[in-house]
């Protein structure tokens, strides 16, 4: 029996969603290639291969899904992962990161769509924990001699020196992780995803607005952050479909809280991973956010007092979680979170997820 509807929009499969994200990331690949040439392409190749291998291996073994490697999500994860690391990260670390991103970030949850955390960021945290000496040494961000296209002033024609500097730095700046070089290219990708309706404006808007507002309110006292990094996280990671809320108001709240968390982490002295931590933290709450912001059915008068209370309680919880992460960071215990995560997801897979592999939700 075939059920309604009998028509579907064209170019609308899961695969198409992934292809669109890959297209949106292409400008960044190009900029990375400008900066480092072959090095970046090598790293991307290694990450993609490792992710695809992990996806094929474990989806077949654990989920009995032999074709899920074709959905393209592994490529997206690998690309995003590469964009969050330094270009001089050793290849085996990147390969390990991509491998664990797929295994622990996706397959053990039951496959694409069921993961509660963004796989690329999970992979990144695994790298930081298991290769701590490499990933957290200050040397990892010293790669001046590798750069093929140096920062240059593309707007020499402009009279105003400050403006032309600013424009150039927005267009191309070899600082930080590989996806952070060009704010323009990130924004371009974001625009493409918005136009294709693969992301909605809610999360990026509320995230950036909150972050800017907090910066402005508190007064920027020497907070050092990378706008490129924040934008990359905002557009490509915070909007990741499986790990973000499904309702519109929920998305606004979710973006808002990521903005708050990012700001708090920056203020608390987390140097590099403020964005990853805040997104991962809110990933954990995204189901609750969806439910708290459940829309009122047509014609139903909502209980706004009850909702307000629920929002308040949720905000309290998230606030506590932010403080907890800050304290763990302060005492250098963040890696225990990753160990707990591993135990949790493995146990959960054994006793629960593996029985529900064939459920679509």
């Amino acid at each position, binding site marked *: 029996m075939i059920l*309604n509807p009998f028509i579907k929009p064209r170019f609308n499969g899961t695969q198409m969603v992934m292809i669109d994200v890959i297209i949106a990331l292409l400008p960044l690949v190009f900029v990375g290639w400008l900066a480092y040439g072959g090095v970046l392409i090598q790293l991307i190749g290694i990450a993609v291969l490792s992710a695809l291998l992990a996806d094929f291996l474990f989806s077949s073994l654990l989920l009995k899904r032999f074709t899920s490697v074709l959905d393209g999500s592994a490529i997206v994860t690998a690309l995003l992962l590469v964009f969050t690391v330094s270009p001089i990260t050793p290849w085996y670390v990147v390969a390990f990161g991509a491998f664990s991103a797929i295994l622990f970030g996706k397959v053990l949850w039951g496959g*694409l769509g069921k993961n509660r955390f963004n796989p690329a960021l999970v992979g990144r945290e695994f790298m930081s924990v298991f290769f701590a000496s490499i990933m957290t040494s200050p040397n990892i961000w010293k790669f001046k001699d590798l750069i093929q296209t140096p920062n240059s002033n593309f707007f020499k024609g402009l009279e105003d020196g400050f403006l032309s500097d600013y424009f150039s730095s927005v267009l191309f700046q070899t600082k930080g992780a590989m996806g952070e070089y060009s704010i323009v290219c990130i924004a371009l990708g974001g625009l493409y995803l918005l136009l294709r309706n693969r992301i*909605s404006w809610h999360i990026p808007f509320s995230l950036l607005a909150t972050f800017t507002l907090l910066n402005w309110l508190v007064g920027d006292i020497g907070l050092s952050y990378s706008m490129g990094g924040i934008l990359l996280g905002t557009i490509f990671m915070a909007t990741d479909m499986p790990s973000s809320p499904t309702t519109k108001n929920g998305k606004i709240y979710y973006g808002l809280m990521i903005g708050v968390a990012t700001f708090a982490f920056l203020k608390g002295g987390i140097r590099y991973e403020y964005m990853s931590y805040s997104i991962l933290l809110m990933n954990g709450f995204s189901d609750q956010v969806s439910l708290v912001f459940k829309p009122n*059915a047509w*014609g139903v008068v909502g209980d706004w007092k009850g909702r307000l209370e629920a929002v308040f309680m949720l905000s309290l919880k998230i606030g506590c979680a932010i403080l907890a992460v800050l304290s763990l960071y302060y005492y250098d215990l963040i890696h225990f979170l990753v160990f707990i995560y591993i135990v949790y997801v493995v146990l959960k897979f054994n006793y629960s997820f593996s029985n529900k592999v064939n459920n*679509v939700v």
Partner: protein
Amino acid sequence: MLLISSLKKKTKLIAIASLDSPKDFYIPLEGYRYSMGLVVEVGTHLKKYELVAESEGVFPCKIHAPVSGVVKGIVSIDGRSMLHIENDFKETALPLSPLDLRELSLSGLTDHLLDRGVQGAGGSQFPTHLKYQVEGKRIDTLIFNGVECEPFLSADFVLMKERYLELFRMAMLLASVLMVNRVVFAIEKQHKELRNVLLKCASGLGMELEVRLVPNSYPQGGELQLIESVTSMKIRKGFIPSDYGVLVTNIGTLWAMYNAVFEGKPYIERVVTVSGNSCSNLGNFLVRIGTPVAHVLNQTKNSCDLSSQTVVIGGAMMGKAVDSLDSPIHKGAGGILVLKKNRVLVNNCIKCGLCVDVCPQHLMPLEFVRHNIANNIEGLDSFNLQDCIECGACAYVCPSDVPLMENIFEGKSKLF
């Protein structure tokens, strides 16, 4: 808000044409919620317009013979029982008796509508006389629903374009019986050329008419959504619009009412759009209730192959696919569509939230799937499954082809 390319341009300019009547008619014996019982015996010779079956109870319905012929018996097509009538091509008809308009009362009108078997032509086939049993209620707004938000269908549009005089006479009658001041014809923005035609004709008749253009979105033609667009009142599903002073009537129903009241004709024929993305000869046709789909497709010189195509009775979003081409046109069928088979690739839900975005009832369709799979009836209830209008918008946009409708129907059967 969901926009679906309407694809009506293909058929909306084609005038209504008639078809030869087929040899075999299969009269659906499903009324509204209850099935109908035969009032004629097998083997009798029927005259056209003769009552053949009726149901009683809370939702009484009647259905009449669309031709003269012999009752052959009850057959089952697609799992539904149908009355098989063999056409004798003589068209011997019962005399028609229009309603006496001199001493018209509301109850007289509703009795007449029941007697002529008028049911909603928009799809649900709700008995029209029940909708108009509004004694003691104050009706402020009469909305005539010309919003065919389903893609492909243009049956209501051509009716408004070609038969507006009939429609207006019936609308004026209803307005005077119900003592309503505000009469609204709602049409989609894509048909805005119709607005001036309707307004001009209405002013010629001395009728106060409001033509409301509503967005081209889906499902704008849903009763509750249309009421909100016209009166900005949000009525919850399950509540009765006439309690809020609003009555919504589909254009096809209005035309059936005209035929019943002014000509005395029972509801035995309707306008049907033949279209689809895999259909070669398109058009709008006057088709009798009970005509098999195969006959309509033959007459319009369309060929179809059920192994590679889907044939749908109704609209592409809410209609029913047929397993057998003998399936007949029923009172709520606005179209016959020949469509390419959908390629369905069920993947995991990726929680993109598109279904939540497009749901006209502001529900969370993905949660229905989750709770239906888990057999959690309380969960289904707490996400307001009973408010779902089954419009199919969620399943349309879903990139993972999650079987949303299947789970919604299954979940609803667990709820009630």
